């Protein structure tokens, strides 16, 4: 009964995901061992549709030029497309183009806030509030900031399922100047209840930075509705190229902050001893921008918008639900799934372990069948230690993931169980 139910749904839904897969050339090639590529590591980086790859190609073949200062034709075209891409990405998260700073990735975006806002505003004993499930990129910059300023770190705890425990939030927010947290956790997929957290942080006088690396690709993000002060994300996790990311910052904050990286293009006037700076967002963009990748990020956003974030989310919930079910079938072999296990409360990310087999070995065995998953600490070492895990295996999904992919994962895990005799 339930099997039938699933296979029906599979047909309906896989057809759409299958259509989408046709736009992703990487799925056309078999692996070196002649297997179908089963890519379950989109939380690390997503694959790219043809249109994004072609945007890069066209840029370099037809109108590559340095932007902003060129008076000639291709420089004008490059500038126009570059700023149009900024406008698209800004629209995607519902902010003004002037509030959208290009960075190379989420990590740089968070560092920008920590250095530019942090050094100018934090004093000894001020509190920086994080959560126990943050990615290193949303932890180490704050540790270094704390060391530079004498500020102290506090952490919103997570329960054993990886869900934030908000009981003590007001106490934790006492003395807090800035709260920085993931919108969606990258190890367990937990979605943070930002709509409950942000107003309380603001009430306590803290700014809120959201690490959207795992959210912007999958959920419909509206920074105005969220009311956050900063929002950071990376193109490469959302169908765009490597080397480009973005930081949303509230206009008034961006205006009041000193610059971070400095040099060409971010200035207004320069004398030998002194410089004045351009308006945001350019004030924070020093040196030659990553023009090609920014424009291609715009194309990725257009593709995602065309598919529709609502469809993406529904699709990922279906796949997650199916994967949770397939993994549950392996429980007798010692498979343990971590995290909330509720597709409504998590992104398309599942961490697990298979009996006493180490996640690395499991991933290697899956690789021989073309199944790509991640194994290790997922850049959340403190969370791993807190949970008492050496490493986990992690499968993550995106709009091109099919139930066939999940079946391949389950088959690979059965094989691993056989090899490890569990």
């Amino acid at each position: 009964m339930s099997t039938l139910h699933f296979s029906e749904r599979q047909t309906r839904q896989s057809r759409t995901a299958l259509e989408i897969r046709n736009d992703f050339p990487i799925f056309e090639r078999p692996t070196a061992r002649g297997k179908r590529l089963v890519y379950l590591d989109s939380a690390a980086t997503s694959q790219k549709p043809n249109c994004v790859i072609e945007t890069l190609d066209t840029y370099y073949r037809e109108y590559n030029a340095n932007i902003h200062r060129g008076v000639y034709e291709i420089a004008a075209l490059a500038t126009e497309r570059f700023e149009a891409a900024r406008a698209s990405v800004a629209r995607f998260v519902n902010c003004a183009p002037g509030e959208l700073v290009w960075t190379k990735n989420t990590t740089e975006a968070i560092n920008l806030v920590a250095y530019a806002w942090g050094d100018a505003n934090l004093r000894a004993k001020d509190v920086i509030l994080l959560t126990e499930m943050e990615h290193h990129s949303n932890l180490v910059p704050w540790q270094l900031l704390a060391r530079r300023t004498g500020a102290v770190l506090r952490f919103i705890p997570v329960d054993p399922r990886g869900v934030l425990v908000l009981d003590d939030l007001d106490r934790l927010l006492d003395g807090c100047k800035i709260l920085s947290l993931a919108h969606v956790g990258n190890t367990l997929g937990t979605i943070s209840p930002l709509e409950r957290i942000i107003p309380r942080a603001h009430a306590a006088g803290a700014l809120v930075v959201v690490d959207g690396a795992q959210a912007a690709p999958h959920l419909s993000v509206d920074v105005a509705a969220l009311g956050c002060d900063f929002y950071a994300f990376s193109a490469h996790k959302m169908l765009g190229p490597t080397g480009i990311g973005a930081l949303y910052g509230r206009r008034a904050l961006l205006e009041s902050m000193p610059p971070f990286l400095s040099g060409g293009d971010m200035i207004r006037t320069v004398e030998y001893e002194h410089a004045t700076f351009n308006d945001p967002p350019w004030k924070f963009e020093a040196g030659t921008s990553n023009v090609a990748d920014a424009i291609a990020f715009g194309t990725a956003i257009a593709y995602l918008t065309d598919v529709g974030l609502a469809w993406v989310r529904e699709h990922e919930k279906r796949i997650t639900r199916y994967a949770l079910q397939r993994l549950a079938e392996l429980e007798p072999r010692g498979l343990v799934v971590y995290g909330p296990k509720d597709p409504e409360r998590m992104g398309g990310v599942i961490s697990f372990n298979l009996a006493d087999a180490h996640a690395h070995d499991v991933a290697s065995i899956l690789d021989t069948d073309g199944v790509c998953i991640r194994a290790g600490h997922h850049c959340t070492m403190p969370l791993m230690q807190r949970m008492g895990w050496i490493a986990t295996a992690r499968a993550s999904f995106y709009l091109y993931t099919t139930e066939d992919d999940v079946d391949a994962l389950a088959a690979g895990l059965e094989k691993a169980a056989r090899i490890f005799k569990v």
Partner: protein
Amino acid sequence: MDDFYRDYILDHYRNPRNFGRLEAPTVTAEDLNPLCGDRIRMDLLVDADGIVRDVRFSGKGCAISQASASMLTQSVIGKSLEEVAKLRKEAVLENVGIGISPTRMKCAMLGLRVLKSAAIGSLAAWPDEE
């Protein structure tokens, strides 16, 4: 790669030889694989002539790193520190007896790196990058 998970590898993984700590080691070293966070510690008992008399390893990790370390400890007793310091990655690869993919090389070499660090007295290079 399936190859790798032969019975004797799994046996070393589940029943590591010379596992634990020495009560009074002459030298100790510990390191981790920065890629996955797996850690290994090696305790050596070295006599006045610089000969390894006893060895224990501890830590947690994948089958490849654990089995490699376990097998390595078996071949180390009776060697001089100089000999240990000069051990090459081939020593590990011969032990494990089958091919290791480049992505897992650091796992296989973790035990050796820690062992050599103990013998040299400072951090050794990754044996696969020498």
